[in-house]
């Protein structure tokens, strides 16, 4: 076992995070105990962040104590690991607009004290302003056509100066008629005015036609 990032362990090619609530499982992940610490295995087929780390991600801005705005939290598979990563001193603001995933996300938020559920549309960031604060990282996985615009709006309001973004792009949900590479290049070009692109990680073989982009907010001139 070795530690790839603070809070992320690698065991026989599988990733794992330190369980914030020992003994509790979130989905059907395996629990492993080593040296008095309980780890939750992090399935790369279920979580794009895990896939990105396995595919050689170099910068992981999500650290113990970080404040994260997570757009498109879905039912909480990846979010639960992010919650493990930031630990008790961090906060994860989880935005999700669909009813069904929110029901299971809310159950998770009640158990995990560093998670805050926001049942809102990420297209309208002002609507959840009352419950927010400035964050270190925005993680986005929304699979919508205007995902670049959504990220822009949220980063403008909530991302600290020189904060980071992590963006999962699904080429097919943006334009299914164009080639994957073209769509991804076009989406990255959209980010360029406001962000400095650090990494683009292909998520094959875990996810088809997906990439993870890590970028830093440009300092205001």
């Amino acid at each position, binding site marked *: 076992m070795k530690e790839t990032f603070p809070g992320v362990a690698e065991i026989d090619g599988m990733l794992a995070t330190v369980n914030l609530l020992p003994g509790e499982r979130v989905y059907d992940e395996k629990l492993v105990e080593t040296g008095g610490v309980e780890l939750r295995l992090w399935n790369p087929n279920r979580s794009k962040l895990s896939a990105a780390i396995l595919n050689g991600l170099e910068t992981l801005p999500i650290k113990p104590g970080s404040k994260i705005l997570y757009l498109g939290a879905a039912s909480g598979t990846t979010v639960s690991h992010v919650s493990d990563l930031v630990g008790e001193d961090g906060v994860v603001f989880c935005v999700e607009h669909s*009813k069904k995933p929110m029901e299971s996300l809310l159950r998770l938020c009640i158990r995990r*004290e560093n998670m805050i559920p926001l049942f809102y549309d990420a297209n309208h960031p002002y609507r959840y*302003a009352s419950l927010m604060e400035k964050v270190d990282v925005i993680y986005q996985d929304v699979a919508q056509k205007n995902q670049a615009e959504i990220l822009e709006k949220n980063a403008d309001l909530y991302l600290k100066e020189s904060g980071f973004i992590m963006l999962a792009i699904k080429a097919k949900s943006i334009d299914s008629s164009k080639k994957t590479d073209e769509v991804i290049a076009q989406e990255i070009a959209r980010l360029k005015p406001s962000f400095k692109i650090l990494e683009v990680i292909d998520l094959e073989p875990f996810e088809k036609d997906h990439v993870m982009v890590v970028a830093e907010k440009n300092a205001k001139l």
Partner: protein
Amino acid sequence: MLTPAGEFKFNSTGGLIEFKSIDSDEEVVKLLMTPSAAPTTSEDVRFFLSHQHMLVEKTGLTWEDYSEMRRRVALGLCQAYLARAPGDDELIIEALGTLKDLQKALNILALRLAQNYTESGVAPAYEGEEISPETIVDTGVSHTTNVSEGLARQIKALIEYRGGLEEELEIMMMRTAPNLSGLAGPLLGARLIAAAGGLGKLAVSPGSRIQVLGAERAMFRHLKERGDPPKHGIIFQHPTISKSPWWQRGKIARSLAAKLAIAARIDTFSKEDRSEALRADFMRRYEAVKKSHPSEPRRMKVVRAPKTVKKKGRRRGRKR
């Protein structure tokens, strides 16, 4: 600006002028849910976000108190919103219904517009051609009456709205039912959800029911009186059925419906996008049907024993 701790009022230069605390979390949740509680200006929001620690201190709370309070309010708010939020499939059915009515209204209005336009006698050039509202707004404004010009503008606006709604429906379908949309297309998928009365209901329907959804009249005629069972309902709109010759349609409809049932179940219970595999499976079967039944069979004369059910009224021929 309303916050979990209470209400802040800022002046135009971003200074704090007033703070009103709110006693209970329940009260805050209630206030936040009223539409007028939305933050007033973007300056307020920006000021609140960048001076949050200072503002919280001024209320006499510690940051720990505040963040706990915020968490309680967020949980309460989320629960309250969940209780009255419509499900995704309900939103899809609503959008589909709106689209249908919109189309009806547009047809009526466009007809009226065309009539006005030709009756005014200024447009012989357009005779026989379809007159689009764009034509009237863009080219013929000076020739037409105020009435038809205004109408043309409204129709144009409605057409734009319809386009946006179609796109919205497509996005909702891709998100809530990726497998169904992948196999049937977003629009047909939405129609199936609406006909079944929800995604959950579609998921618990057998393929045979999905096959005849929307052909209830023919189905019951078959069950009660006589006549062949319907081969397809709404799924007829799928190009693999509507573009195939009649003798292949039943077979294709049957296998498409079976795959759609699987797709609906994946969408309801796992959400994983397996539409490509489903589509490949179906296309294999589709090609097989095409190959094994290439030419029109001779129609067989079927001699039916008269049914024993007593029939009421005039005997009507089967609608073809």
